[in-house]
């Protein structure tokens, strides 16, 4: 609860800072934010688009948060997304199953791809104590080049060299009832997958023995070992689950929001996932709301730009400032504690201090 308030204050401070920037370039902040909200919510279609924009972020946020909770820093969500998207697209472009079967196969392929891409860093961490930050950065670039060469090599569109062949209608997560309900928005089944994942991950972390073990390993792998938990298996498993979530994000991104896989781009959603996780305090539901917030910012900013003289770069600046305020939330915590004296000091972050080289 208190953490939520702190996040909220961070958001408000970020918005205020953004407002000051708007003043600085001679625009009216209130007007700007009004258009931003209109841009995100004005029509059902826009609401749908906002949700769709948030969807990949839900997954990458969850992915990073899950790893964080188990003491790992997965900076490789971008690469895992790419590979997840690639695998799902490959299935979608290759097979001609009935739609439900095809979609399930694609989702499974995406999960597998993301999981595989995170498995290796997990394995290296567990067996050789290779720091996962470096390993996942390397895997990002390997993913980038893999997609770069595999897509034109095997799934090349007729002319296009910057993305794969377009997926057939039935091999995408877009469904008619959603499109209709949201008035032609590109919202798709991904949002449901996202919500389901949030619930499942929350459940795993808080209610299961698996979550108990993973968190224990994250906080203190020596104690976990002492207590008979299989530390290496848990580290790998944690990375695999984290990667699977990012892979699902890739499915949502490339077969839901888009219908082809892009090459030459590491999806920025992977890095934003770090911010989303942080703002959501590494709790699944927190991640969900943080992702929606990012969705609003990304989705509303275009309309704000169109209606005012505020340049497009400002939305990113605001997001960045919000993250900084969230990172320095200790300060906010102290203030909140001052006004809200009750019990002892709250836990600032539910995250073990990330350590390098050693674990």
């Amino acid at each position: 609860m208190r953490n939520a308030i702190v996040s909220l204050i961070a958001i408000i401070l970020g918005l205020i800072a953004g407002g000051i920037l708007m003043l600085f370039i001679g625009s009216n902040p209130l007007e700007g934010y009004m258009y931003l909200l209109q841009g995100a919510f004005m029509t059902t279609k826009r609401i749908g688009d906002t949700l769709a924009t948030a969807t990949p972020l839900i997954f990458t946020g969850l992915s990073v948060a899950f790893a964080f909770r188990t003491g790992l820093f997965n900076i490789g969500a971008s690469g895992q997304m790419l590979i997840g998207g690639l695998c799902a697209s490959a299935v979608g472009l290759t097979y001609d199953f009935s739609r439900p079967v095809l979609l399930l196969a694609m989702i499974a392929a995406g999960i597998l791809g993301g999981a595989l891409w995170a498995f290796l860093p997990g394995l290296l961490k567990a067996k050789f104590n290779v720091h996962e930050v470096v390993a996942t950065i390397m895997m990002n670039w390997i993913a980038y080049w893999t997609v770069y060469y595999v897509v034109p090599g095997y799934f090349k569109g007729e002319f296009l060299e910057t993305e794969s062949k377009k997926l057939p209608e039935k091999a995408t997560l877009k469904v008619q009832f959603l499109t209709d309900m949201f008035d032609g928005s590109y919202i798709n089944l991904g949002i449901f997958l996202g919500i389901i994942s949030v619930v499942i991950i929350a459940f795993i972390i808080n209610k299961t023995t698996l979550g108990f073990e993973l968190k224990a390993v994250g906080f203190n792998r020596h104690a976990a070992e002492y207590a008979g938990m299989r530390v290496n298996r848990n580290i790998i498993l944690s990375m695999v689950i984290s990667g699977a979530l990012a892979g699902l994000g890739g499915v949502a991104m490339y077969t839901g929001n888009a219908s082809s896989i892009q090459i030459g781009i590491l999806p920025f959603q992977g890095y934003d996932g770090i911010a989303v996780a942080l703002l959501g305090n590494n709790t699944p539901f927190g991640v969900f709301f943080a992702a929606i917030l990012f969705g609003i910012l990304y989705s509303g900013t275009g309309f704000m730009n169109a209606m005012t003289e505020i340049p497009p770069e400002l939305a990113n600046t605001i997001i960045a400032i919000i993250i900084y305020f969230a990172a320095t939330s200790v300060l906010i915590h102290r203030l909140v504690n001052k006004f809200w004296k009750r019990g002892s000091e709250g836990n600032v972050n539910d995250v073990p201090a990330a350590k390098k080289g050693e674990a």
Partner: protein
Amino acid sequence: MSYVVEMLNIRKEFPGIVANDNISLSLKTGEIHALLGENGAGKSTLMGVLFGMYQPEKGVIKVRGEEVRITNPNVATRLGIGMVHQHFKLVDNFTVTENIILGSEPIKGLVIDIDSAAKRIEELSKSYGLNVDPHAKIEDISVGMQQRVEILKMLYREAEVLIFDEPTAVLTPSEIDELMKIMRNLINEGKSIIIITHKLKEIKAVADRCTVIRRGKSIGTVDVAETSTEQLAEMMVGRHVSFKVDKKESTPGDVVLKIDSLSVKNNRKVLALKDFSLEVRAGEIVGIAGVDGNGQTELVEAITGLRKADSGSVKLNGEEIIALPIRDRIEKGIGHIPEDRQKRGLVLDYTLESNMVLEVYNKKPFAKYGLLNEQEMKKYANNILENFDVRSGKGGASITRTLSGGNQQKAIIGREIELNPKLLIAVQPTRGLDVGSIEYIHKRLIEHRDKGNAVLLVSLELDEVLQLSDRIAAINNGELIGVVNASETNENEVGLMMAGVNKERNV
């Protein structure tokens, strides 16, 4: 009479607790002054105030008669106050010299003048009989030598007042003797010393006066020579404490643990345990006596599964367990009170509740089909916490990190005994605990034995081994030197065996 340090009416608060409430302590020039109190009584805090790590809310500090404000450790150092902390403040991969000069480095031109520093350290080391190699790396030297490095650090800075916070908790008996000797040397050279220790015997051995505090309040200062250990203990705890461990004669049953020709390598890939054989029977406590670093850690880790054995066999109730995973060994009835409670024993960021089920969270009734049952966990945990008098701010919901060391230790012991293991391995179970807690824990260990379980006790404190054990196995350089009956031996004999002298009197 001349006081070198006077701390008058010191008050220090932490959020939610008054750690020092109107405490006074005066140190005479040339005396060894002991500071005694239960775990969490506020001793470390008081010394922290003197050393400038904490600012007191109230009170006055005088050094050599003059009122001073010690705002940080540098001020303390300038005033000639030095401190050896409870946990050593040494950088592992630095050399002795680098550690000592850190913060007051001698400079020649642009660079640190390591050579002249090393020379000066060598001289200091010689003149106080400290025997320290200035070029050795900290990670390569023994704990005892590390402590002497800490002492050298103070001497190098020309400290007049030396504070020792529980200096003996990590030392072997012979190292303790040596430390006492060094302390007397220091006094002879005109230094004054404050020592915090839970071991009344040591206070009797070296201290001139003793200040006792309880729950943050001064109880009084006494002349050590005129006060018995019983009186000291009573002042400290507020009730009578029995030092005698009450125990019946053991009635050994079947062999529970049978170790046969066990060899284990240490982290440096050298055999640290060699061809070790030992039996522990139901209903008896076998104590391992030995100086730190003689293979105890490797022995325990091989039995519990934390370390792979090189060769040999370990049988539990007749069943080979040498290759079993840790969890299987726990399930087959091994309980383990680990040496390093913060590294191994606890997930400090978990609640106490979670820590209390650390080994059984996946068993009924705490879990069903992989789902946790928090109600049951709570019930189980609170029962342990109550039984073992684990004190914390929010009971089972407290984050374990916020507990004092002593209470963390009690929680672990409670958890392990509650598992009711057929074999309980207790490593240094009372390290750093006050006498009241020690008494209680000893009682529980014996109770556990009396229920017909085997207990393997590993302790660096010979007293504890002698008092608790039914049989004593001495270990030296990874080898079993001999096994003796506790009732038929004495400190001298076991001490000799620990030094590697075999008396061929195996039982």
